[in-house]
């Protein structure tokens, strides 16, 4: 059933061979091959951006792939070469996919959702006049079919309850049952199916997946929880930077080894910039206790952090684990609770104005959504928040004050020069800039506030290499020259390690551990996979760490 070389296995159900894909000039997948046999559960693991979702989108014939020029390489199903032009074709061929976000209708019952748009009907004569949709639904058969699908999963739930009243675990089962009900489904792709589940629910789900595999289904299981991977899967495929770096039976490997494969780098880049500076004596700038944040897709459950004055602190973790929720919650942009102190002063939550007034600033990861007024000029974008909060850039008349365009321009020119913002001038609209330059405008906006502490989320997401270095250098410079404390949130571990002093790894809404930037990569990989790291590897700034290590 399992084997290191599956390419010639006649029992192979599904096979990718030499899959490569580029979006424009960026290569996201290079020559990836792997196979899934009948009854086999294959884990697909890797960091964000390793190429997992692109690979799955290719297997599922998503339009996003076809619209961007397709892919090279070949897919085989039952040994026959296949190429899907749309998800519909993939479904008809027998590939089922359960996405990370639920795709259920809340006001429908479980049965109605399982059979959505595949309802059995009682055919009538009207059909020939008005088409098939005029037939009445066959309710008893719907219940029967839904029941069958659920029993194949080996779970019992009240299929007549409305989905909106179901616990989250049941929703996941409905999603899977929907794929099972398609009689053709032979390969099932599950994208982080346990991410939203409590531990007890997750173990029921794993049991159900085993049962499905025993019935002969092939399963691709995508998860960051390596322990689950070890427990459930026959084989694990590790992707890194678009390459397959390992494919091995799980019984021949360990969590530690997989984690090492995930994060390993061939050459340690930018080593010289890693600053080993001890801040344990510095006063606490920001203290966070029991923070929770309700940010959809980036929920924070319980975070405790002590950030020292003048340090550059990193927040690492996989997408969806909550690292982005922390700054958004502290700055009042998402509903939050818990206690946050800034230089000993209690910071009111859910009040952005108070945070800004206290001397915090935030560069959001959502540049176009939160960071910019796209239809306004660069100079207005840079000066806007300072104008609103600190009454800068205003020209006073007797009774009122209007915008001082000259002062705005002067300020903008300074940053255009310092950050090398490529634009036609300070009056160009922010919406017309490239991603990298928009990011620089967002940074300039924060710098103009002259904050004591600034949060920067995903500073280099979607920008080119040259701009990346510039942005990171600007952060370093402001940190050194003005003594600004900086908290950087990023999915790029390497980038954090090159710029930060300490890095907290966030996993499942909690701090999995805090490491010095110089800690070995494997340790970061382990923390991201829900594993623990031995105490001696933890940060020199010790006190904050041991209590929170592990989940």
């Amino acid at each position, binding site marked *: 059933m399992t084997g290191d070389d599956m390419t010639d296995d006649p029992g192979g159900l599904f096979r990718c061979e030499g899959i490569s894909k580029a979006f424009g000039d960026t290569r996201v997948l290079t020559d990836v091959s792997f196979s899934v046999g009948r009854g086999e559960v294959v884990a697909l693991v890797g960091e964000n951006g390793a190429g997992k979702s692109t690979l799955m989108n290719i297997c599922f014939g998503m339009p996003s792939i076809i619209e961007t020029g397709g892919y090279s390489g070949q897919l085989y199903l039952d040994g026959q070469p296949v190429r899907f032009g749309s998800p519909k074709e993939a479904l008809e061929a027998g590939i089922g996919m359960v996405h990370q976000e639920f795709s259920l209708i809340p006001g429908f019952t479980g049965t109605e959702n399982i059979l959505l748009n595949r309802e059995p009907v009682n055919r009538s004569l009207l059909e020939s006049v008005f088409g098939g949709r005029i037939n009445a639904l066959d309710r008893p058969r719907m219940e029967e079919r839904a029941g069958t699908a659920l029993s194949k999963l080996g779970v019992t739930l009240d299929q007549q309850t409305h989905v909106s009243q179901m616990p989250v675990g049941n929703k996941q089962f409905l999603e899977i049952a929907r794929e099972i009900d398609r009689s053709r489904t032979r390969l099932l792709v599950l994208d982080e199916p346990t991410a939203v589940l409590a531990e007890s629910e997750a173990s029921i789900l794993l049991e159900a997946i085993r049962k499905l595999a025993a019935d002969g289904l092939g399963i691709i299981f995508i998860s960051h929880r390596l322990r689950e991977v070890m427990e459930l899967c026959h084989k694990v495929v590790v992707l890194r930077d678009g390459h397959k770096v390992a494919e091995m039976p799980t019984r021949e490997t360990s969590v530690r080894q997989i984690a090492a494969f995930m994060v390993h780098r061939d050459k340690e880049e930018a080593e010289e910039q890693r600053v080993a500076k001890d801040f344990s004596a510095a006063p606490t700038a920001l203290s966070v206790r029991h923070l929770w944040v309700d940010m959809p897709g980036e929920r924070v459950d319980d975070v405790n952090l002590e950030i020292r004055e003048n340090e550059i602190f990193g927040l690492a973790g996989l997408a969806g684990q909550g690292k982005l929720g922390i700054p958004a919650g502290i*700055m009042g*942009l998402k509903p939050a609770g818990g206690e946050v102190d800034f230089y000993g002063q209690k910071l009111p939550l859910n009040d952005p104005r108070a*945070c800004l*007034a206290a001397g915090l600033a935030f560069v959001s990861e959502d540049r176009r959504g939160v960071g910019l007024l796209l239809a306004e000029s660069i100079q207005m974008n840079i000066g*806007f928040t300072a*104008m*609103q909060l600190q009454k800068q850039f205003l020209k006073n008349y007797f009774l009122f*004050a209007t*915008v001082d365009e000259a002062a705005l321009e002067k300020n903008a020119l300074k940053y255009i020069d310092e950050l090398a913002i490529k634009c036609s001038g300070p009056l160009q609209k922010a919406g017309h800039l490239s991603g990298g330059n928009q990011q620089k405008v967002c940074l300039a906006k924060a710098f103009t506030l002259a904050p004591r502490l600034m949060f920067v989320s995903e500073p280099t997401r979607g920008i080119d290499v040259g701009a990346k270095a510039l942005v990171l250098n600007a952060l370093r410079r402001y940190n050194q020259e003005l003594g600004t404390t900086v908290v950087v949130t990023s999915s790029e571990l390497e980038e954090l390690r090159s710029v930060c002093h300490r890095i907290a790894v966030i996993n499942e809404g909690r701090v999995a551990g805090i490491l010095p930037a110089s800690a070995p990569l494997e340790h970061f990989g382990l923390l991201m996979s829900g594993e623990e790291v031995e105490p001696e590897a933890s940060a020199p700034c010790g006190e904050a760490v041991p209590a929170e290590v592990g989940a």
Partner: protein
Amino acid sequence: MNSIKNMIETAGWPRIIIGLFLLSLFMVAPLVGVKVSTSIHDTIVRFGRNGVMVLAMVPMIRSGCGLNFGLPLGIIGGILGILISVEMELVGMSGFLTALGLGVVFAAFLGWGYGILLNMVKGDEMMIATYVGFSSVAFMCMAWLLMPFKSAAMVLSYGGSGLRTTISMDDFWTDLLSCSLLDMLPDAAASFFSQLDISFLYKILPDGLVAWAVSVVQFIFLEQAMGMILFFGFMCFLVWLFFRTKVGQAMNAVGQNPDFARASGISVDKMRVLSVVLSTVLGAVGIIVYAQSYGFVQLYLAPLYMAFPAVAAVLLGGAAVGRVAIVHVLVGTFLFQGILAMTPSVINSALKGLDISEVLRLIISNGMIIYALTRRTKEVR
């Protein structure tokens, strides 16, 4: 070729079509026996008369509350101001200013409540605004019947209680803002201009051109509606100035991107309420200007549909559900009122006995609104 394309794109097809239509009306006018100068005068008067009500769209669109279909609320505030001013038997400027002052206060109060309501229903503002406007008009119909006004100018002659449907402003302040530029000039300057000898121009330029230029200059200086136009211009300037202040910029940001505004420490809800108050106040000022020019105040169901021409005009001027500038108000009011002024005179005298102008108004104004509403989804994405 490209520059023409660009020009068309900046101006937008609806404006070009309507603009050409209006231009052709002006050109056809003399052929069917309509005097051009009368048509232009009509257009200008209507422009000044309706302009402020169109301007009342601006704050709410800017803050993202959408098109102000709730304009009747501001109109009610303005009418209350007028009625009280008339009841006090104030005549001339004092009456006008009292009406304005009271109208603004009532409208601010109504707008405040209306703004809070709209904050409760974010996303559904336009439909609710329409029906809040409608139901408040219907509610005021009952109030007009019951309010204890006494002035003989306003109360129904039979029965002695309840307000008339149409109240004439003739004895109070009709055409108060009507004055020409010449009237506004100091006497010395006026006499200087009137004695100006331009005979030398005839020697160096073709006679026809000079005569034409003289008639244009005379028109500009003698046009009685200029006073009202200046008042409208002043209101536009005030609104423009407001959007140059810190609060105005904050309101702008709320409309463009509420998340950005929140992240900059701005209270989105407060800004929205403020914008609704401003729009409602402008609506009150608008109806007062309208009444002084039109000469009548119409009560009962008359304000019901007053929002629609104003909404259509601002959209015609180039505004969208989430984007507006003062220039849209100016262009839109001119085009829309131009068509309303010209179609009855031109089309009806060309096609004898066909009152097609009302039908055209319905089609143009509502077609314009539908165009804007269906365009929105595309812009958002």
